[in-house]
Structure formats: C-alpha cells, structure tokens
C-alpha cells in the first residue's frame, strides 16, 4: 500500500543510474550508425521482457511532452533524433537510451521507497551490463558528465511540503539541507503553489560513497523532513481558527464541481486536498491517487485525450471533468 510509505508527504522516489558501454563513444560523440547500434543492442537485450519501445523520432511533439510531464523522459532525450525510451508495462522502469549517457536506467515508485527503487534499477542494470560497461577501477562507472561518475546514481525524493511552505520555514530548511551534500529544487512562496509546494531532494555526490550509503543518507534526510512536515501539519490543524479548514473544504468543493480548471489552479487545489486527507479532514482516496490525477491533468496529457488542436478553454473543461470524476470518492470525514 502506498499509504505505508509516507505517501501523503513523499510523493515519489526515483533512482537513476547513468551507464555507458565501453565500445561506443558517449552520445555527444556518436555517429547515427553508432546511435542505431546502441538502440538495437538495448532493445534486443530487453525485447522480450515486457518493455515498450518508444523511438523519439516516431512520436508527435505532444506525445513526447506527455513523457516529460510524467517524468519518464527528459526534454533532452525528446530532442535527440535517435533518442529512445524503453518503458516497462507498469511504468516503474524507464530506460532513456542515447541521452547524455548511453543509458539512464530510471526507477520511479510512489511514496518513499529508496531501497525498493535501488533493487529494481539494479536488476535492470545487471541485464544490460553484459555488453560491457565503461568502468574504471578508480573512478567507477564512467559518464559523459563528471558530476555522475562513480556510482552513476542519482536518487531523489519528491516531497509535498505544504505545511513547511505555509509557515515560511521552507527557505531555511532547504538551505540547511543544501549544505549537507544534497541538491534541492523547490517551488514555493506567495501564490506559488503552481507546482503544489513540491520539493525535490537528491544526492549531489556520486563518487566516493557506495550506493547503499547514498540511499541510506538520503533516506535519513528525507525522513527527518517528513517528520518535521508532519508536526507542522498537526500544529496547523490545532491552531486553526477555521480559516484552514475553510480553505481545504473550498478546494475540495471546487475540484468536485468546477466546469473549467487551469492546470495551475488544479495543482493548488489538489495540494489542499492532499493536506486535508493527510490531517484526516477528508477520506476515501489516497495521496498517490491524487498525484496520479495531477499527472493526468498536465497540459500535454489533457491534450492527448482531445482531438485536433484544442483551445485552452477546451483543455480546462476536459481537466475539470477529469477532476470531477476522479474525486468522486473523496468525502468529508
């Protein structure tokens, strides 16, 4: 169950491994022929293992944008004519082929599941390693960018820090975390719930620490932030004069009944509803289900459900409908 992984605060976990083959130059220096050879090699290794092959060149711009919105592919991969994505049926594993490195093995799981994501990415890594990785006794896995060399591992957790954000303590928290070897990316502040008060925390160093150390250290940092966020949420509810519960209930009401909804408003309202679920104001849905709605409601994903080139009003109507239906089970406790 997603609920057992602090999913009301930790929205998702990702582990990414950067890998290159020893016998081909890195993508920036590959010829088209070599790029094709790389694609065929990877596709044939995983061909019979329930992976869907997506060649960037054969996708429409909107289809590519959907992959970016869903964090399955980077914009950089989409812009590469020979770029290829291999996607597992459950979408937990996506392998970007021919991005900055030959392989970017990514495992994306809901909630806080660092060890699980590590294990999953490791099993794919083992299957692909048989063709001979570029590896150096001193520097470990060799990568196009020296910021990835060593383990090639970037582990990250996406956190929904609506409490810390609304009490103004986000800035100092992020600065502290940033000083300890983590990369922090966040959107927050007045009227900024544009991205729903999401903060991404990832390891900065990939060399000189074992994979287990990277995972463990990040896990510790994340758990301490989750704890802090939880106590702030409790204090918010306790000290609420009625303003907070009014706001959260309004947001649920609007999501359930609005006929047009911009993606920005959607993110703001869903952030409120997630908070309401977390503090026991609402029931009937999980945070992971709300996150899924947020993903499906992104602009390109909405456009992909409509024909032709929909107007922004048409998209907002389709989004509102998606949310009305999606939030049917969400009730006031």
């Amino acid at each position, binding site marked *: 169950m997603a609920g057992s992984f602090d999913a009301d605060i930790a929205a998702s976990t990702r582990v990414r491994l950067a890998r290159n083959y020893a016998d081909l130059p890195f993508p*920036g220096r590959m010829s088209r022929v070599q790029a094709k050879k790389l694609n065929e090699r990877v596709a044939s290794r995983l061909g019979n293992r329930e992976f869907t092959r997506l060649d960037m060149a054969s996708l429409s711009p909107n289809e590519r944008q959907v992959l970016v919105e869903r964090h399955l592919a980077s914009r950089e991969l989409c812009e590469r004519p020979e770029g290829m994505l291999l996607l597992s049926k459950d979408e937990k594993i996506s392998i970007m082929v021919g991005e900055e490195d030959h392989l970017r093995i990514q495992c994306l799981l809901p909630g806080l599941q660092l060890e699980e994501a590590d294990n999953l990415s490791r099993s794919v890594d083992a299957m692909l390693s048989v063709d001979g990785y570029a590896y150096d006794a001193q520097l470990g896995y060799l990568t*196009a960018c020296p910021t990835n060399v060593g383990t090639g591992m970037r582990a990250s957790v996406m956190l929904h820090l609506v409490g810390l954000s609304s009490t103004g303590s986000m800035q100092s928290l992020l600065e502290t975390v940033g000083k300890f070897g983590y990369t922090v990316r966040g959107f927050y502040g007045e009227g900024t719930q544009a991205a729903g008060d999401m903060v991404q925390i990832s390891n900065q160093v990939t060399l000189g620490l074992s994979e287990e150390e990277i995972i463990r250290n990040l896990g510790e940092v994340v758990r301490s932030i989750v704890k802090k966020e939880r106590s702030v949420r409790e204090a918010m509810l306790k000290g609420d004069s009625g303003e907070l519960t009014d706001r959260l209930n309004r947001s649920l009401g609007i999501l359930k009944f609005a006929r047009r909804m911009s993606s920005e408003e959607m993110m703001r309202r869903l952030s409120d509803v997630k908070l309401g679920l977390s503090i026991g104001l609402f029931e009937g849905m999980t945070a992971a289900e709300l996150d899924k709605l947020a993903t499906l409601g992104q602009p390109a994903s909405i456009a992909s459900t409509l024909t032709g080139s929909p107007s922004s009003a048409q998209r907002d109507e389709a989004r509102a409908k998606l949310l009305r239906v999606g939030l049917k089970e969400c009730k006031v406790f």
Partner: protein
Amino acid sequence: MLCDECGVNNATVEFVSIINGKKIERHLCPACAHKLGADSFMPFSWGDVFPTVGSFSPRQEARCSVCGSTLADIARTGLIGCAQCYHDLREGILPIVSRVQTKTRHTGRAPATFESKKIPETASKPESETEEARLTRELNDAVAKEEYERAAALRDQLKALRGELPNSQKKPTDSKEGN
C-alpha cells in the same frame, strides 16, 4: 518583477536550487515555473564546473586516441567524449572530477564482468600508485576494525601490486625465478 525566463509575465514564483552548497535563485512566472519544474534533473551551470579553460595548461593539445576530444573540447561542451578520454586525458579530467565530487575514488558496486579482471588490469596501469594508496588505507581501516581476514587479503593484494608475492600463493617455480 518580471520573470527571469520569459521576461514577459510577472514573476510570482521563487525557484531555488542548491547545488554544491551554492544557491541559485530565480524569479519566474507560473507558466515558466511549471515548464522548468516538469524537467527531471539538475539544471547545470558549466561555469561552476569548468571555471576557466585556461586552467588546463598542462598538455592542452593532448587528444583522446578514440574520439579525438581535447580538454578544451571537454571544457567547451561540459561533456567527456568517450571512455578512453578518461584514460588519455586523465590528468586534465581528474581535477574536474575532484572539484565536482570532492572525492576521487569509487567505493560502490562494479559490473560483474569487471570483477574477474580487476587486479591484473589496475596493476599494469600507471595509476597503480593510487591503487596502492587505496589498499594501504583499506588495510589500516581493516586493522583498526579488527577485521583480520580482510586485512590479510588486502595485505596480499598490496604485495601483489608491489611486485612481491603473497605468501599463500607463492609457487616454487616463481620464488626461484625471482632470485
């Protein structure tokens, strides 16, 4: 204030990223914030990593024997060309690695295919000095932690690296040839 990205809309979103302890602050409009937020990983400023191309003064003209990259190419693109670059341009690349990583020795996993040929390969390379330093450090560490089995294995590796033969693997023919 106008958005740093598009310069058109009003900036209402503060975007902060902290990389290598250095804070990068940007003021964005919701649309641009969204666009950038949808992107997965680290935005990278190459100025931070390659402060000056001129700092690679030693053997500036050296070229990778496989892909032809020079250190100047690497500084310009921010990317290393191929695995061989790490070998051929090593003295220029190692300082970059230590600048972005703080440490310069991998301690994590290795591919299964690599394990078997690990020791002979490193012993024959000029980097054997640093390999020796690593083994010495690990040996001290093992002794400190009273992991004597590991210490013995490390001591043997160290001997092998220095051209001495570990006691356990000493063969009659070898020992005679040495004298």
